[in-house]
């Protein structure tokens, strides 16, 4: 998230003063300073109560001054920094070497572990798993705090494996009761679920393909039509640092979807941002009239992007083909500059797991089996959980189109997220979209005469150190035909 950059500016100014003002220009022949950490990635894991002494080696640091920044604030100007692990969580330190001619920085992450009882995160369907005989089910739970853990898989009271991954296949039909446990010296956790092996399993699956719009229920612009959205139908953000947050995020303990939708609507009415959280989080809005595709720009979706802080959201549109006034028809994506040509993954999905304890990272697994976390950044956003309070399920899955993230840590130690060329919300100041960019799930162009609903969805899975996950923020959704 980018709002922290505002805090960052006075700090940068201060550093410039620190580095001294030499009026004239001098020729510096020294190479840029090099910072060498004991841990090359700058990632340290500590137990609660321990201390960590950081003493980076600096090459070409002649006459340089140092600054240690914790979550963007200067905490020391010495060459050595001692970190005390008083509170569990993830901390970001930036070590800067400021020479008259150049400043270089290096990011350091410190993870302070809480009491390390294993916790298992696993997406179990409500009625257990259903598979056909002789097919393979790969069971790969995420286990938090699994340092030196041992695992045990039990099927129908018989031990079958001590690995963390279990590959189940059988020719025998019937119900199999599974128990998976993880144990270490601090404690244990276990999950139980069933697997039904049956010839009937898996037949209901089918790729839902949006039907071609009927074009039957056009709602023309009336005298009193407004350019702004008029109904928020859904708000389902991914976990993120602004979700549930009362400060900048403006939440006030919303515990139902209705309350969350009201929250989103009020925020947008006041031109305040609504965060969609990490990858896949979305908001759905409708209008009091249909928006016509005239080949030019038809939609205006505003975000809070500024220079080098692109957090692109994919824009989807829907026609009310069945005329019931609800967004239950087919979504069509508005393609942007990355499609075709860039790295775009359609039907990318991520499952987010509700954390067990307050102040924890949110674990996720994607449909490629890759796991990760939305980091808890307690120094900036200290609400108990980044997992939406109104989502009661232990996990939820978000599916969408994923762009390759472009963020990187610059030489000077700030995170840069350069914008994409065009076609994404919260990407740059250009906030206009053409309905003529609509594509089918295969990426082929589709001609939509008009649309009634808009969905904006975070379109990258990435994080930027102490700035946290990349999340699309929206401040306005409008029919641009009525403005232009």
């Amino acid at each position, binding site marked *: 998230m980018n709002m922290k950059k505002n805090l960052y500016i006075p700090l940068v100014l201060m550093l410039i003063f620190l580095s001294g003002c030499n009026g004239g220009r001098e020729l510096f022949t020294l190479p840029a300073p*090099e910072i*060498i*950490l*004991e*841990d*090359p*990635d700058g*990632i340290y*894991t500590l137990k609660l109560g321990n201390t960590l002494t950081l003493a980076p*080696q600096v090459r070409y640091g002649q006459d340089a001054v140092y600054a240690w920044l914790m979550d963007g604030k200067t905490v020391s100007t010495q060459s050595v920094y001692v970190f005390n692990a008083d509170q569990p969580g993830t901390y970001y330190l930036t070590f800067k070497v400021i020479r008259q001619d150049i400043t270089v920085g290096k990011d350091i*992450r410190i*993870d302070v572990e809480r009491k390390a009882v294993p916790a298992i995160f696993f997406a179990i369907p409500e009625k257990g798993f259903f598979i056909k005989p002789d097919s*393979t089910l*790969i069971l*790969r739970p995420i*286990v938090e705090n*699994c*340092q*030196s*853990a041992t*695992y045990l898989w039990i099927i129908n009271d018989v031990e079958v*494996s*001590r*690995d*963390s*991954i279990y*590959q189940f296949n059988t020719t025998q039909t019937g119900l199999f009761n599974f128990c998976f446990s993880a144990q270490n010296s601090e404690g244990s956790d276990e999950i139980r679920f069933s697997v039904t092996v049956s010839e009937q399993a898996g037949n209901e699956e089918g790729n839902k393909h949006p039907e071609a719009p009927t074009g039957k229920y056009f709602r023309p612009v009336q005298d009193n039509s407004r350019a702004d959205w008029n109904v928020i139908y859904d708000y389902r953000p991914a976990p993120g640092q602004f979700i549930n947050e009362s400060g900048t995020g403006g939440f006030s303990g919303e515990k139902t979807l209705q309350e969350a939708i009201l929250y989103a609507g009020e925020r947008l009415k006041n031109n305040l941002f609504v965060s969609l959280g990490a990858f896949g989080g979305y908001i759905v809005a409708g209008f009091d009239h249909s928006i016509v595709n005239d080949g030019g720009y038809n939609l205006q979706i505003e975000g809070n992007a500024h220079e080098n802080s692109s957090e692109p959201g994919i824009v989807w549109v829907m026609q009310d083909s069945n005329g019931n006034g609800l967004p239950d028809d087919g979504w069509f994506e508005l393609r942007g500059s990355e499609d075709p040509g860039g790295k775009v993954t359609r039907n990318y999905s991520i499952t987010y797991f509700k954390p067990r304890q307050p102040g924890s990272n949110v674990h996720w697994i994607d449909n*490629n*089996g*890759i*796991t990760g976390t939305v980091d808890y950044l307690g120094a900036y956003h200290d609400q108990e959980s980044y997992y939406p309070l109104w989502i009661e399920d232990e996990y939820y899955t978000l599916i969408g189109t994923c762009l390759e993230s472009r963020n990187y840590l610059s030489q000077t130690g700030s995170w840069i997220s350069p914008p994409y060329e065009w076609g994404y919300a919260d990407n740059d100041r250009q906030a206009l979209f053409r309905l003529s960019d609509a594509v089918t799930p295969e990426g082929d162009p589709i001609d939509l005469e008009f649309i009634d609903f808009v969905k904006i969805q975070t379109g990258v899975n990435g994080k930027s150190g102490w700035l946290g996950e990349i999340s699309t923020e929206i401040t306005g959704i409008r029919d641009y035909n009525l403005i232009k």
Partner: protein
Amino acid sequence: MKYGPSETEAFLPGPSSKGLFIVNEGNFMYGNASLSYFDTQSGIVENEVFIRANGINLGDVAQSMTIHNGLGYIVVNNSGVIFVIDPGTFRLKGNITGLISPRHIHFVNENKAYVTDLYRERITVIDPVKYTISGSINTPGHRSTEEMVQWKNDLFVSCWSFDNKILVIDTQTDTVTDSIEVGNQPSRMILDKNNKIWCAASGEIYRINPENRTVEKIFTVSDDATYSYLEMNASKDTLYILNRDVWRMAADHETFPSQPFIRNRNSRYYGLAVDPATSHIYIADAIDYVQPGKIYRYDPDGTPVDTLTAGINPGAFCFK
């Protein structure tokens, strides 16, 4: 134990095509070496893929595997053979025989590869395309040659068993031209982004400048001269050292880290690998040297993710 051709299984080349071969040594003189394959995306481990795909046993003490030009070369030490397989289907494409106690293979060019040997004062030169022995390089006084790393036209080879030398071989003339003295039992060698050779020997890590063939710096890993496994990430700027614990050190750093990166979990660590694409870390645990070993997989930041079962004494890895 199975002998001779038996029923074979067809493996389809995996769609993700990303995976890791685990070479399981087996037990000396038991002929129970095996090959496992771990598909990193799906998490599936297939054990004994060599015998399942080919109907024949891998042999006695599988030592190492190297993929070159789309073919996998598995060096089976005590069987004196190198099996060449298709890494996608695990099917045998050919074999190179007539070796005494082969350890590792290094490809000099398309038609020439070197094979080190544990019990011979020579390195065998093979033709990796025709699967034949094409010559040899005498290494007088050095009966055990082990790992190889090439810098420009010079090949550096460690002399492991009861030795303390690294030999320099001119790959154009196939002759030994120089030697460098290091600690006892030098084994693993690796070249970093600064073109420095790192070599593990007698509980220490040596940083060697291949240009002037001098030891630049010695880092002490353990005081009891135990064997160290050495690996490097894809960008060749970070070393991973397994010696009881796993240590991680920047190639530019001048001091050995004070704290381990991953602590030993009371295991008999038997192998180390770092994914060249993702920097995930794999540690092999031989447990009791009899039952199938375990593989522990860690995130790049050292968080454990998977625990897998491989074959007996998993010792070497090869990324596809």
